[in-house]
């Protein structure tokens, strides 16, 4: 019986210590970490598409035979995997061949920084620089609502994306742009989208990132191959 009592007590102690370790390993609040300092130099994105392919909110020829619509939240880590890993692969395989256009839509729901990032992207779109700004956002994700997409850092991203900062500043201060981003989120909900990223090709819709072969097969099928 002594062994059972000791096991029960040890189990509870180890569990409580585990929770304490979890708390000590992570900050309680959204206080920015040291890497969130003012001397922020944005990391360059993995993909810098040719200018003719990056138009409006999309990547690829306007008349490409297949349209892939992607709903993302800029703070969602799986969306980061999509933006930093899958999109560059699709660009090389289909976009440069004129077979695919990827259209981006905002489903911002992870917090205020998701909205700030999406508003910044919309204002970049006003200057025909959406894709540059969008790619920089995914390349510079750090946690969630911890300052990675603070107003100051977004301005740095706008600068390296080649935006006219005075026009961008005016745009992000316009409440109508936030209304647009909120309307995007409302549309996502009305479409039955339950998470990000959500991919849509024609009638096909999937939440998350499918295996590369499955996604290629889906695009090839839409191409009629």
């Amino acid at each position: 019986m002594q062994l059972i009592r000791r096991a029960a007590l040890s189990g509870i102690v180890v569990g409580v210590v585990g929770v304490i370790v979890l708390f000590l390993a992570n900050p309680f609040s959204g206080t920015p970490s040291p890497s969130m300092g003012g001397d922020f130099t944005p990391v360059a994105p993995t993909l810098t598409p040719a200018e003719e392919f990056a138009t409006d909110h999309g990547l690829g020829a306007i008349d490409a035979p297949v349209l892939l619509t992607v709903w993302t939240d800029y703070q969602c880590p799986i969306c980061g995997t999509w933006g930093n890993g899958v999109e560059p692969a699709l660009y090389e395989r289909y976009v440069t061949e004129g077979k695919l256009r990827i259209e981006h839509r905002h489903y911002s729901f992870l917090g205020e920084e998701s909205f700030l990032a999406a508003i910044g992207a919309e204002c970049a779109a006003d200057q025909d620089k959406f894709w540059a700004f969008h790619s920089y956002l995914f390349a510079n994700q750090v946690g969630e609502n911890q300052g990675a997409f603070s107003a100051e850092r977004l301005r740095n991203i706008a600068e390296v994306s080649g935006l006219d900062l005075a026009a961008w500043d005016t745009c992000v201060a316009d409440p109508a742009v936030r209304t647009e981003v909120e309307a995007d989120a409302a549309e996502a909900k009305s479409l039955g989208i339950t998470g990000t990223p959500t991919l849509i090709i024609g009638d096909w819709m999937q939440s998350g990132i499918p295996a590369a072969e499955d996604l290629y097969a889906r695009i090839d099928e839409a191409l009629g191959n």
Partner: protein
Amino acid sequence: MSRAHRISAVASAAGLVISAYLLSIRLIGVPVICGPALGPFGGCSKVEASAWSSIGPIPVAAIGVIGSAVLLVATIMHARNRSEGILAVWLFAALAGAAIEVGLIAIQAFVIGAWCVWCLLYGSTVLVGAASVIRVARSYAREAHDSSPLRR
């Protein structure tokens, strides 16, 4: 196999499946079946994106996979041979897991401010498993007491 063993085995197996699913979302990006359509329990992306989803480089879901596997193996082994040593391991793992789960549920409620349906289901499997092993341990204690020489 007693009723408590069966409940613990089913709960641990379910916990293993759920934690493996959560781990695969993080590691290989399998589709997330969650989101705002699930109302207050649809905050999976928010929970997953938070700093609380890992301890350093180790995803919490990976700890869940190991924990559920240990509970499942301990349950089956104890059901077969009723060893006190295995009961001790089973009790230790179940109570440690339950304490951690209570902490994680509190973090979702009070720190992250979002509920993830899969995390809550996983937590339920751990708590049900813990209740089962406590039941087994209490009946073991009763039997030990009843068979003690002082009682004869």
